[in-house]
């Protein structure tokens, strides 16, 4: 067990866990921030995507001991982020979600894309979103919602 100081959504948070504990489980079980989802545990589905120092990162394989000072941003903070808000609004407007379980991760990947590429092409979208599985298969509407959000930014 070791104690870590984390910067999550702009707040200092302290946690004492085994150093191997993935950031995902620290968020979900230590901080009760369950918007970030467990889907595979091997960085293959993207349900656990958060931003670490602004980069879309799979939190399921990132040990808490390696996070360090880098700021962590999760789905719970997206409502206060202008790009996050635009993406969430577009998602609701386009009625994207079905079961919804993957959508936190989809939105975090989409926001990371739009922060770097304000007017993404279809190829940009496929590249950035290409590691997020939606088992319901809502990809057509995800693509439309990203374009809608991009138009407003």
């Amino acid at each position, binding site marked *: 067990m070791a104690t870590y100081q984390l910067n999550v959504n702009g707040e200092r948070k302290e946690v004492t866990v085994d150093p191997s504990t993935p950031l995902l489980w620290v968020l979900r*079980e230590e901080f009760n921030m369950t918007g970030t*989802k467990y889907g595979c545990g091997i960085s293959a589905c993207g349900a656990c995507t958060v931003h670490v120092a602004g980069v879309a990162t799979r939190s399921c394989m990132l040990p808490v001991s390696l996070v360090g000072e880098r700021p962590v941003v999760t789905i719970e903070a997206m409502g206060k982020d202008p790009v996050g808000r635009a993406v969430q609004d577009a998602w609701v407007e386009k009625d994207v979600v079905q*079961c919804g*379980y993957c959508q936190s991760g989809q939105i975090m990947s989409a926001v990371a894309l739009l922060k770097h590429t304000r007017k993404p092409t279809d190829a940009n979208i496929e590249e950035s979103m290409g590691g997020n599985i939606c088992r319901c298969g809502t990809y057509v509407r*995800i693509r439309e919602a990203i374009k809608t959000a991009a138009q407003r930014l």
Partner: protein
Amino acid sequence: MPLTNTNTNDLTLISRRNFLRASATAAGGLLLALYLDSPSAAQEKSQPPSKPKVYPPDAFVEIRPDGKIVIQVNRLEFGQGVHTALPMILADEMDADWSQVVAELAPAADVYKDPLFGIQLVGGSGSIAHSFQQYRELGARARALLVAAAAARWKVTPEQCRTEQSVVYGPSGQSARYAELASEAARGTVPASVTLKNPSEFRLVGKRVKRLDSGPKCDGSLKFGLDLNLTNMKVAIVAHPPVFGAKVRSFDDKEARAVEGVRDVFEIPVARGGTGVAIVADKFWPAKQGRDRLKIEWDSSGVERADTSQLWSKYRELARTRGNVAVARGDAQAVERIAASRRLVAEYEFPYLAHTPMEPLNTTVRFDGERAEVWVGSQFQTGDQAAIAEVLGLKPEQVTFHTEMAGGGFGRRATPDSHVQREAAEIAKRMRAVPVKLVWTREDDVRGGYYRPMHLHRVEIGLGADGMPAAWRHVIVGQSIIADTPFAMMMKDNIDPTTVEGVNDTQYDIPNFHLSAHHPKVNVPVLWWRSVGHTHSAFVMETLIDELAARARVDPFAYRRRLLKPEAKKLRAALDLMEAQSASWRRSLPKNHALGIACHESFGTGVACAVDVSIEKKRPRIHRATVAVNCGLAVNPLTIESQFQAGTAFGLSQLMAKGAITLRNGIVEQRNFDGYVPPYMPDAPVSVDVHIVPSTEAPSGCGEPPVPVISPAVVNALARLTGKRYRSLPLVTL
């Protein structure tokens, strides 16, 4: 049992035909099995059929003082949209203000059982089809109570009142909000019969209404079963046997118990007579670390070690013999009398498929010795509640059962043996008074069985001089899903209807049609996978029909139309609409692109699909899909559009290069999304336009029907590009 009512419009009741159709699906079998056993169903059964069941509106609708109208949804929501559509139906008849409607998933209780199945279950794409009438009547009865209360207050007749947006208006300008009338209305007598709206009077039904659950699913606030966090809750993970049904011979838990946070380690019974080792810890990660450190000796003696390559050999042999006969129309030997030059023999192979819903399977149980409380995203509350009660030595009614929102399911959350819930109950039994959340890791899910069965189809076709099929002999080999389950009584002539559906009821008019099936017993648990038998039957039928059309040098639309039965009106209308809507792009396909089409009817819904496909990086690239749907009255066209857009991506799971579960020496070879890979965005169509055939017939299913058509449509396009016929899935190479 169909509901009856003073339904004065032309929207028919759930018809006998639909009832029979439903009973020919996996879910329907449960109906027969459990309906007869259930005392309440027996009671209903003894009633004359003319006497309708009156559902108590107060179990479904609550009008709160602040004007909120809370509607109970008697089904699991796991993406399909009933959490919005059922409240729409009720709110429409009630004339409720939609902006004030809140939907809740109902717990397990008799009143929430499917009116046709007699159990609480999502299956057979029946949620809207079975509960459309029920929710309309509930809404109309709630409205009638409110109007009666207002009329009494104003000393007028109910007929003098009208309603709109949660307000009753009287003849002399009086008005009262539903919330003001609620307590008076609650004292009224529920009318036995009510008049329902004409379709032209619908305000919500038939409109593109957005989902009620979007917001909390986009900001991370919606709690799925896996997100549950109860006071003092523990997390459990189970080490499952590597071979189905194997048992723990011995285990060493010293290192596992040394992990900080691990609280207990013990053996429990698991599915198929096997045993496993449960690790209970404070949190997920220590439970996982504990499991990784367990040393277990397994005893797999006396357990069959299934091996897919050996199974294929066995299946191939079986397919050369006649199975149990499902359909024998005309002359079974006719095919042999047709000249070899006009005969075609085709063998198709379909692998085991895992469902892999995004939210891993989980169940939380708290057992205090006399009662239990359960939280689970269950497709099958009635069975899961009974199974948990059985393990804990309780009666089902002593198990309070909360239905949690679920992250997908596709059939995986409706298991006849409730094996996940039984594991959770076994753990809770030991951890008395402590709530325990059992989590199946993704590895448990991929390796854990309950797959779409592998199938082999062998088809011999004899063509007439006109190029149309004159004789068709079809043998299907595949495990039965329902044999040895409570659903088994739905077997007919030793045939599992879910194996042959889509072939036995083909909409094509083929003389001399013979279909038989073998159901080998294999030590691999199998289960319905979204659209069940249609996952493979539609692929076989629609690729063969396309091949026959090409061979006859007839346009694939014209060939299908010529072969469709005159009574296949629903499917024909879908095919016509698809042809019209895809006309513009079909005629101007870019170079190296090809068109593929398919049509299929399942769960009462006719679907036709056209795709524009090219080959990129040796994989199919689907630039566009046009889908036409004939599902009767479209309750929420927006949801239907979404289901059909996304359902195409789900259907493409079958074509993925790593889209198969295989076993070697009894052990599943895939572990996670690295070895068993579902479609990602680039694998799905870039765009899908969905068109709905206008209809005021009773609504039919939209959850499963999107799945069957896409794979054959894509493969038909590939055949045009490569000249090859693809009969073995997944598509490892093109």
